[in-house]
């Protein structure tokens, strides 16, 4: 008997076709489907069954393709989203429902979600929300907060139609780039490399701090089949350094003598594609010597601590400072004072798409295709590393499967570019989940001490904030965090006497960088928690206390900035007043009949300045009209799922006076689309949106001017002409008669917008931002006092967005931000070496996010396009403190360290009981 599979081929039905493959022993079905069969709609997020993105149906049952040996598919029927979307009526209705509900944001989890949902819909045509949760519980989403996914599946059988209309500002049109996401055809970082591309693997430090020596790399290279090249720091033609803040460029592409965090790169191996599955990273000739490390702020600031960087004494990288009035005087003379210390841990972005891309040489230029939030910054970083002129570098971003701040920094790009330059061939890489988690940036752990005082009538008198932020081994966006925190740590309140200092401290950890809110969420935990304590001590209702102290138009912020308009925090707080009253009554009634389960209601407010802090951050948007009458928008604001492609287009369409569906979008590409800046700092709707508005207005003005039409004229484009209908008269511009520019545009406009800000002085006084967005959230939680588990049961979120360009997308940002805030509050903590996967590092699942009621407040901003303000980061700022306040309300226990895991909550409850 030959017990091997007699036929070396494995044959199965893939969607509607029979396929035959020859997998290696132990090859994952996800690998075979993607690499062997080109089924790129199957996404890989973890290779461990933790995220479900790769879900396929085998004989109708959803399984993770990454956990399935390809050989097990023999004789079976494998269905993927790509096939289902083409042939399965349930899937087609579902696609439409996902689009209409805004259930796909970045789209990387969407195939897993939809395939799982199809299996459910085949069993149950009208599933309940609980059935949807059970069926989709194995697929993680980091963008949406899941609620719209639940709605989309529940509503699927009776597909509601999308909001009709021209997509003008204020209308909830489905996202313009959504169809590819809900049919599995969107191309992300790992979906674009040519089939013959070489493959990179990176050699990383196994220790937080280590010295290392390479063995005989040349011999190893010559004697290891399939290894095409090895790259180390000596192969970097330019500077072996990168960073995002000009004065803080400190991170080597490859460590040269010593590594400063677990997972830091020291070398890269370039493999032929067929050698990848057999390659053992452990075989690489390197010897490590572990060195004493400083992994905590206290360790790193101890006198004997190893220094991470020269000229950063005591491992203090930098500090931010804001001062107004006399805080110490106000605190010492106040009627009532509260103080506290609050601690947070590393938080991982945990987008479902690990960093991925490919690079190639094209006519002597280097071209990098990768997921990114900041294509032009990538280009500038590579300019330095490669020592090349920027005209010889082109960045073509792929679809981005979530970013949340971490994909602002370079990750795969330098390695890809170096390898492509070195070999002259296309080279690709997709980080494994663990190397993504080990090597990319995190949210800063914070250790905050805060004191706040108020007078008997409830007016805040003084506030003193002191925070140490663990910035990890390299600068990344640490300077931004230390600058932003003191500006925001007051919360959206009038604080006449204020002192705030935030230090960024180096440790032997992955770099802490940008993560939705740049340190402000950590600061808000301290401030909003102590506001509750202060209100209680004063005997004032917690919401009334906030209303009493909330900023208004014409009241100065702690930076001395006075807004004459647009301050919407009172409106947000007022909007949650009725929920505050009714939910507190309901919780009291619930608690009167429940001994172990206790409900509590928590509130918190927040604010966030949109755009860079007192620094220029222009966006440029170009548009043009071709001779055939088509309208083209060069939209370079990276859409990482938040909806820039849709929102910027809606703004442009309104300015030009045209239906959005008529606009042809050209995405970010450093060769053809001007710099719309980074997708960060909640700036795209505001800053790039303003540039899009200016671009649309300029284009419109040029057209109107040609025929001397009035501002109110209506424009119609098409068939090689523009019809300008102006009151009684009508003009037709025959575009074939007009000269066109190098881009083929007969009319063109390129406009730039840069928010008006002013520098901060040595006391942090000035104009840091041209606009702030504001918010207030309420949460009801249920605490199991015996086990310490906390279950949020409802959120009400009021957000002042100035003008909701697309209310559906606003809700999507609110729900997604709340989900991240909930994760940070209750379950998320990255511990290097211990939680480097998505089963030890927990993010919320579909069962963890309760219903969220979004209340949109529109307090127009004079600077924003049609009054719009930024939103993305604002959302999670109040979520964590609101949850902590609700736990306190439910149980009397004040949690001062997050995540509030069951063990920590239970310990706090026991301590409370012991104290009583």
């Amino acid at each position, binding site marked *: 008997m030959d017990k091997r599979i007699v036929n070396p081929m494995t044959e199965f039905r893939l969607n509607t076709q029979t396929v035959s493959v020859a997998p290696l022993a132990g090859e994952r079905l996800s690998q075979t489907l993607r690499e062997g069969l080109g089924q790129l709609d199957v996404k890989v997020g973890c290779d461990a069954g933790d995220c479900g993105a790769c879900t396929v149906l085998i004989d109708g049952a959803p399984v993770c393709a990454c956990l399935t040996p390809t050989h097990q598919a023999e004789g079976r029927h494998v269905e993927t989203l790509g096939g289902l979307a083409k042939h399965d009526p349930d899937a087609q209705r579902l696609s439409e429902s996902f689009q209409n509900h805004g259930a796909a944001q970045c789209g990387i989890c969407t195939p897993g979600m939809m395939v799982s949902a199809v299996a459910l819909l085949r069993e149950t045509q009208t599933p309940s929300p609980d059935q949807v949760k059970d069926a989709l519980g194995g697929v993680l989403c980091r963008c949406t907060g899941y609620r719209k996914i639940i709605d989309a599946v529940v509503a699927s059988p009776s597909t509601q139609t999308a909001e009709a209309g021209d997509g003008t500002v204020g209308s909830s049109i489905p996202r313009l780039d959504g169809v590819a996401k809900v049919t599995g055809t969107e191309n992300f970082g790992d979906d674009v490399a040519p089939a013959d591309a070489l493959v990179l693997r990176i050699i990383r430090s196994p220790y937080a701090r280590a010295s290392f020596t390479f063995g005989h790399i040349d011999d190893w290279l010559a004697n290891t089949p399939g290894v095409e090249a090895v790259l180390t720091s000596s192969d970097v033609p330019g500077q072996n350094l990168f960073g995002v803040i000009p004065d803080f460029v400190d991170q080597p592409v490859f460590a040269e003598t010593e590594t400063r965090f677990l997972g830091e790169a020291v070398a890269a191996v370039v493999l032929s594609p067929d050698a990848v599955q057999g390659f053992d990273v452990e075989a690489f000739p390197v010897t490590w010597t572990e060195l004493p490390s400083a992994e905590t702020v206290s360790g790193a600031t101890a006198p004997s601590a190893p220094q991470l960087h020269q000229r950063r004494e005591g491992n203090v990288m930098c500090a931010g400072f804001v001062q107004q009035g006399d805080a110490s005087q106000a605190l010492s003379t106040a009627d009532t004072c509260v103080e506290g210390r609050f601690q947070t841990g590393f938080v991982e972005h945990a987008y479902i798409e690990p960093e991925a891309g490919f690079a190639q040489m094209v006519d002597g230029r280097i071209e990098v295709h990768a997921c990114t939030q900041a294509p032009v910054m990538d280009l500038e970083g590579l300019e330095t590393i490669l020592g090349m002129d920027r005209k010889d570098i082109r960045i073509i971003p792929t679809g981005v499967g979530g970013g949340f701040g971490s994909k602002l920094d370079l990750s795969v790009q330098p390695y890809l570019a170096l390898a492509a330059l070195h070999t002259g061939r296309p080279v690709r890489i997709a980080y494994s989940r663990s190397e993504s988690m080990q090597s990319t940036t995190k949210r800063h752990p914070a250790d905050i001490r805060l004191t706040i005082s108020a007078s008997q009538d409830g007016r805040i008198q003084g506030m003193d904030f002191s925070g140490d932020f663990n910035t990890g081994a390299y600068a990344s966006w640490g300077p931004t965090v230390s600058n932003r925190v003191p500006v925001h740590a007051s919360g959206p309140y009038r604080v006449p006497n204020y002192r705030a200092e935030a230090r960024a401290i180096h440790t032997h950890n992955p770099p802490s960088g940008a993560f939705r809110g740049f340190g402000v969420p950590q600061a808000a935990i301290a401030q909003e928690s102590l506001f509750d304590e202060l209100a209680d001590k004063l005997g004032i209702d917690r919401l009334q206390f906030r209303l009493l102290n909330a900023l208004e138009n014409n009241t100065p912020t702690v930076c001395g900035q006075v807004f004459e308009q647009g301050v919407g925090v009172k409106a947000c707080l007022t909007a949650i007043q009725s929920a505050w009253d009714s939910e507190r009554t309901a919780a009291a009634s619930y608690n009167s009949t429940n001994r172990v389960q206790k409900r509590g209601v928590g509130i918190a407010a927040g604010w966030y300045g949109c755009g860079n802090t007192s620094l220029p951050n222009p966006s440029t948007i170009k548009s043009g009209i071709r001779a055939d009458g088509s309208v083209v928008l060069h939209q370079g604001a990276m859409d990482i799922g938040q909806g820039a492609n849709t929102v910027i287009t809606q703004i442009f369409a309104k300015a030009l006076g045209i239906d959005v569906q008529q606009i042809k979008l050209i995405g970010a590409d450093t060769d053809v689309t001007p710099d719309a800046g980074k997708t960060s700092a909640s700036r795209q709707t505001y800053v790039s949106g303003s540039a899009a508005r200016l671009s649309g207005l300029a284009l419109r003005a040029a057209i109107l001017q040609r025929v001397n039409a009035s501002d109110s004229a209506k424009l119609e484009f098409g068939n090689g002409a523009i019809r300008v209908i102006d009151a009684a008269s009508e003009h037709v511009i025959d575009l074939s008669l007009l000269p066109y520019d190098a881009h083929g545009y007969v009319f063109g406009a390129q406009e730039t917008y840069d928010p008006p800000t002013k520098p901060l002085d040595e006391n942090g006084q000035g104009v840091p931002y041209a606009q702030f967005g504001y918010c207030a959230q309420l949460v009801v939680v249920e605490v199991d006092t015996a086990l310490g588990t906390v279950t949020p049961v409802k959120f009400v979120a009021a957000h002042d967005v100035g003008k909701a360009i697309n209310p559906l997308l606003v809700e999507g940002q609110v729900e997604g931000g709340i989900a991240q805030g909930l994760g940070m509050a209750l379950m998320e903590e990255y511990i290097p070496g211990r939680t480097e996967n998505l089963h*030890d590092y927990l993010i919320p699942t579909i069962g963890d996010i309760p219903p969220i009621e979004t209340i949109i407040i529109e307090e127009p901003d004079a600077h924003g396009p049609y009054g719009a303000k930024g939103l993305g980061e604002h959302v999670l700022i109040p979520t964590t403190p609101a949850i902590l306040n609700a736990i306190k309300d439910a149980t009397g226990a004040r949690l001062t360290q997050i995540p509030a895991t069951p063990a920590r909550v239970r*310990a706090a409850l026991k301590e409370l009981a012991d104290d009583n």
Partner: protein
Amino acid sequence: MAYFAPTALNDALSLLASEDVSIIAGGSDVFPARGQAPMQNSLLDVTRIEGLAGLQWGPNGLRIGAATRWSEIIKADLPDCYAGLQAAARTIGSVQIQNSGTIAGNICNASPAADGMPPLITLGATVEITGPDGVRRMPVDEFVTGPRQTHLRAGELVTAIHVPPLPGYTRGAFEKLGSRSYLVISITMVAVVIGCDATGRIDFARVAVGACSPVAKQLTGLEADLIGKMPQQIQISTDHLAPLAPITDIRADAGYRLDAVAEQIKRAVGKAAISNG
């Protein structure tokens, strides 16, 4: 390196004897453990072996084939004493994992947090091991000897789990504690099978705890003390939990685990006793 997928048990056994193979069933532990590392040896896929999957009733109770997937156990129509096992099955990972992962895989992976172990212990399950010298059986909690360690010898294969008949009036329950709703490794878990007499007092008790010791533990002292008690009035003492040896890890500290387990036992007993009441 080869991938063997025999359909006959004898072929599988002779492969185990002659080849350097690792056993793979659902793959839900094999692949995550391997990560990006290359295969070190050939694989023996046991999921196509005839008779290795599925549930079969006999005079000596229920035989659950080693390669039976958790989803099959969830869907099966089983007596009330299996309610804990079925509840545990529903909490294993996700639908995707339940459709792949097998009952014997869960046991052979020998994780202290294996969700299948406590309910199988409370059911008095035994492991059927087939090897070159024939078939042997041992209780499930003896078979697993420690984290990632079992009594499986070279050349042997787990072929089934056997559950002896239990009194028809008994009912099982399972309590799992984790930090999120789905896809969660247990901080602690408790399985019980409880029977009550006509007066509502407990007259049959099995209690097992997972994730609080290297191998899930049956609390026989507690079981004895539960007899004669009303389900809503049971007390859990330090002595009852003495067989446990929880550790402190990223999920929780040891003290919390003991604290939580005591509460979970009360809840599980209460839940199992309700329908007997």
